[in-house]
Structures are given as structure tokens and as C-alpha cells.
């Protein structure tokens, strides 16, 4: 069964540094998402992306965050200047459609640790 893959599985970064998290969505999916899960808390939506542009974003997704689809397969989340509170699991997800209740398929996440 096709999967969403994320790299790296664990990223350790100094506060203030830039970090890029990478995702390869399922190949025939058109909608892509990033979520974050702070340890022990619920999954929180960050941003959705379709047709090479952001379709929706939450208040968490401020100017420090950006997303990009640099080629036909990768989908990246960049945090420009990391803060301690950015430490969390970051999940990428994809779905075939975004304008109906299509299931989202999640990757296994990247654990981001900010020192």
C-alpha cells in the first residue's frame, strides 16, 4: 500500500537555526498537509497545500513557516528561525481530494528537537 514518507525521522537543531522537514506524499494525491503534535498533546493543523499554493493555514503557521513543492514528488516545511516551542512531532499528510471528506494519509512524522 502506498505510504507518505517523511525524512528525517529525528532532527536536532540549535535555537535560531533554519530547519527543513521533507515529505513525499502518495503519488496520485493532490492535497498536502502539515500537522504538528507537541508531546502528549493533540494533533494540530498547520497548513494545507494544493496546486502549488497554500489553500488554508492555521494561526500557528506564522511568518516563520513556509511550504514548498520543489519538484513533482517532495513537499517541504521550512521553519526559518526555530524557537524552543517548535519542538514537536511534525506530520505530513496527503489526500486525493481536499474539497470533500477524503481520508488523509499520514506519514510517521519527524521529531524536531530544538536545543
Amino acid at each position: 500500500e502506498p505510504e507518505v514518507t517523511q525524512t528525517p525521522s529525528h532532527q536536532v537543531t540549535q535555537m535560531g537555526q533554519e530547519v527543513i522537514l521533507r515529505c513525499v506524499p502518495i503519488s496520485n494525491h493532490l492535497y498536502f498537509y502539515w500537522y504538528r503534535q507537541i508531546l502528549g498533546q493533540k494533533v494540530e493543523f498547520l497548513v494545507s497545500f494544493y496546486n502549488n499554493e497554500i489553500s488554508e493555514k492555521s494561526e500557528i503557521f506564522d511568518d516563520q513557516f513556509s511550504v514548498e513543492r520543489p519538484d513533482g514528488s517532495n513537499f517541504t516545511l521550512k521553519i526559518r528561525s526555530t524557537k524552543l516551542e517548535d519542538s514537536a512531532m511534525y506530520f505530513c499528510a496527503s489526500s486525493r481530494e481536499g474539497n470533500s471528506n477524503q481520508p488523509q494519509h499520514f506519514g510517521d512524522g519527524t521529531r524536531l528537537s530544538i536545543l
Partner: protein
Amino acid sequence: QQQVKQSPQSLIVQKGGIPIINCAYENTAFDYFPWYQQFPGKGPALLIAIRPDVSEKKEGRFTISFNKSAKQFSLHIMDSQPGDSATYFCAASGASGGSYIPTFGRGTSLIVHP
């Protein structure tokens, strides 16, 4: 109004027991209610989902009960097994403002003892 409240936070049952996890929502525009199962070190995986036009949906040992008037829904796991030990998240989404982004509950950590 976008919140989904989930309880209990943790649950321990013996093998064969029937754990029940409850969720409540406020936004009446929600019209899709998925449950996700998350094992340690893994991402959430869709387990089962229901729409408000039915009151119950069953897939294998997993059943969702839905009470539209009370704005509540619950997950029942029949004949629970140690392999069911995981964190379970309820979620809700709908066409409010054109958004189908799910709002997640806080999660329930389930442990099934052998």
C-alpha cells in the same frame, strides 16, 4: 466552537474487554467524524469514520456510535486485544467555511492487558 472534547485521557482494560472512548463537538456544521489510531513512533492512521446520516457504523471489532442531537460520538472496541494498545484520536470536519480540515480531540491512550 471548533473544539472536539475527548474522554477519557487514558484507559486500561483487560483482554476481551470493551473500551469505550467518547467525543463531543459543538459545531453543527461538522459532517464527517473519523477516528485515528496511533502507535508509538507512527503517524495517525484512519481507523473508521462515520457521517451523521447514520447512528452506528461497524468495521470488524470497531464500532462508532453517533448521537446527532447530543452532538456526541463514541468508539467501542469489541473483544479488545493487546495489539489494540495505542492512542486513539477522534476528529471532526465539515463544510463550514469550505474547510474539510479535521479538528482533533486530545487523544486517549489505551492499554489492553493480556
